[in-house]
């Protein structure tokens, strides 16, 4: 009995925190979202508004694309970095995880410096081929920016998991005739799957809600956080921005639960 109380009391700080910072504001948000003449109808309004729905779709697709690209790049790089030690190894890892230190706004600037009107690629293209190459202010720019700050998070998780891989499993597969690609498919990736899904979920959630980068690149990018911002500040449509926030949160949450259930199945299959 004592230990049960102990465990319950261990949960108290989390419960208090959740209540103060999650439950209360969320309830507040929900009430604020129906605090207009539309009432709950505001959600119907969102569902039938092409601009909102397109924006939601873009945001989800962009986040999925960023997540997949980050997983791919980080898995290959992470495995390589864990398996190969060379001079400058530590420095390279430090450089790769550097973007963690930047806020979204700074990453937006970096993308403009690279692909903006005065950006590096545009200048090169103009000088060399006499064409204009500007991608900073589009989905491409946003994709690159999000990818840039997603990679370190995924990379660190993948590397931690890759360090713990059981080498004798790979040797066993090889002894049974498996080529390196088959070892990757049958042994390494299944073992990394929980880490990939966990870090992928974080990358996805971050991309769904990222604002700073989108705000810096601005102009014609319609990701949902930007729409929420404009509804709030420009149109002063507080109910709508609250409703959109609820939708954004809900969609992200549902997709995360879906991915978690994938891990669940995987872990169950792995025992």
């Amino acid at each position, binding site marked *: 009995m004592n230990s049960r109380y102990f465990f319950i009391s261990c949960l108290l700080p989390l419960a208090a925190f959740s209540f103060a910072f999650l439950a209360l504001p969320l309830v507040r948000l929900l009430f604020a979202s129906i605090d207009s003449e539309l009432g709950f109808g505001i959600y119907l309004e969102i569902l039938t508004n092409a601009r909102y729905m397109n924006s939601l779709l873009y945001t989800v697709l962009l986040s999925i694309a960023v997540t997949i690209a980050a997983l791919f790049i980080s898995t290959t790089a992470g495995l390589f970095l864990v398996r190969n030690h060379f001079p400058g190894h530590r420095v390279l890892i430090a450089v790769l995880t550097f973007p963690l230190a930047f806020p979204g706004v700074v990453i937006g600037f970096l993308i403009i410096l690279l692909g903006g009107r005065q950006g590096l690629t545009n200048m090169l293209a103009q000088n060399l081929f006499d064409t204009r190459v500007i991608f900073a202010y589009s989905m491409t720019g946003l994709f690159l920016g999000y990818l840039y700050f997603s990679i370190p998070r995924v990379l660190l998780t993948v590397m931690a998991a890759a360090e713990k891989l059981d080498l004798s499993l790979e*040797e066993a597969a090889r002894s049974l*005739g498996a080529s390196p690609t088959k070892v990757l498919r049958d042994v390494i990736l299944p073992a990394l799957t929980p880490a990939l899904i966990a870090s992928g979920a974080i990358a996805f959630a971050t991309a769904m809600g990222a604002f700073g980068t989108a705000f810096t690149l601005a102009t014609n990018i319609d990701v949902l956080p930007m729409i929420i911002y404009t509804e709030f500040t420009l149109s002063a449509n507080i109910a709508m921005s609250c409703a959109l926030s609820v939708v954004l949160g809900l969609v992200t949450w549902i997709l995360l639960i879906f991915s978690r259930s994938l891990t669940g199945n995987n872990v169950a299959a792995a025992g």
Partner: protein
Amino acid sequence: MSGTQIQLKSCSKTFPDGTRALSPTSINVSPGEILALLGPSGCGKTTMLRIIAGLESPDETGKVFFDDSDVTSIPIEKRSVGMVFQSYALFPNMSVRENIGYGLKIKKISTEKIRDRVDEVMALCQLEGLGERNIKALSGGQRQRVALARAVAPQPKILLLDEPLSALDAGLRDQLRDELAILLRSLSITTVFVTHDQAEAMAIADRVAVMQKGHVLQIDDPRKLYTAPDNAFVARFVGAANELSGRLNNNLFSLQGGSLQLPEGISAVSDDKIYVRQEAIKLIPPSESELKGKVLSSTFLGNSQKIVLSDVCERLVNVITDPFSKYEIGQEVGLLIQVEDILVLRDD
């Protein structure tokens, strides 16, 4: 015997950090033979096994042959070796059946043939009915058999086992040792297995290679190793041997507890030590022997008893004798040792 011959030609192994795990070693394993690599932890057994497997390459001069073909530079996946790892290394994301069938699946064998072969191997390894089980839901003994079944399913040329029983607890180990011995013999694949347990080596192997600090000291069949060890290390490691220290003078070996007459020409005893197996010492009345000792303890072992003697030489002497003779603590006894049971050995 059918099967593949293994030949190591002056294979040594120096790891990048400078550790010399194996000194130049040449051994032959005949087709169908079961060879045990026996030695204390860290003596290079696993390294040698991994060189045969192709998981480790020998230093430059070394060569590995399977029959007549030089496989030194062939990677493990092309060597057709079955391997059982110390930790078993079963794939956690696959069922028992998928584990056992993995090597066959890699070979792109048809699903029906895989099913038949897996059934056959599961029957052989007493794994019937466990096919759909998860690896985590198996006992230690079952895991060991799945690891073996997975290794033999693709019909490898050579079977390599690294301490296959060391992960099991003692009681189970004795039982599985005998089962493994029978199973390996029925497979008649050329087999090399690593162990630090001399009883395991003797029970399973046709020949045993005793290793110490990266050297193979002696390769012989278990009986020969026991009765004619090449040196003191082998004598002590393979079946315990008593070390008697004394002084040799004109074939008369004098010890604390008396003397022993040694045969002519045995004068080359190094360090004035001789070795005698525990069961080669007979206990007789003290008046009938030139060599005497005092009973320190007696332990009844069921089919025998172990007597520990003091005052024979500096060390205590262990004697295995019949279980029913009674010995009192402190009692004086005489020692009878046949000349042919005295092992005169190079020191290690």
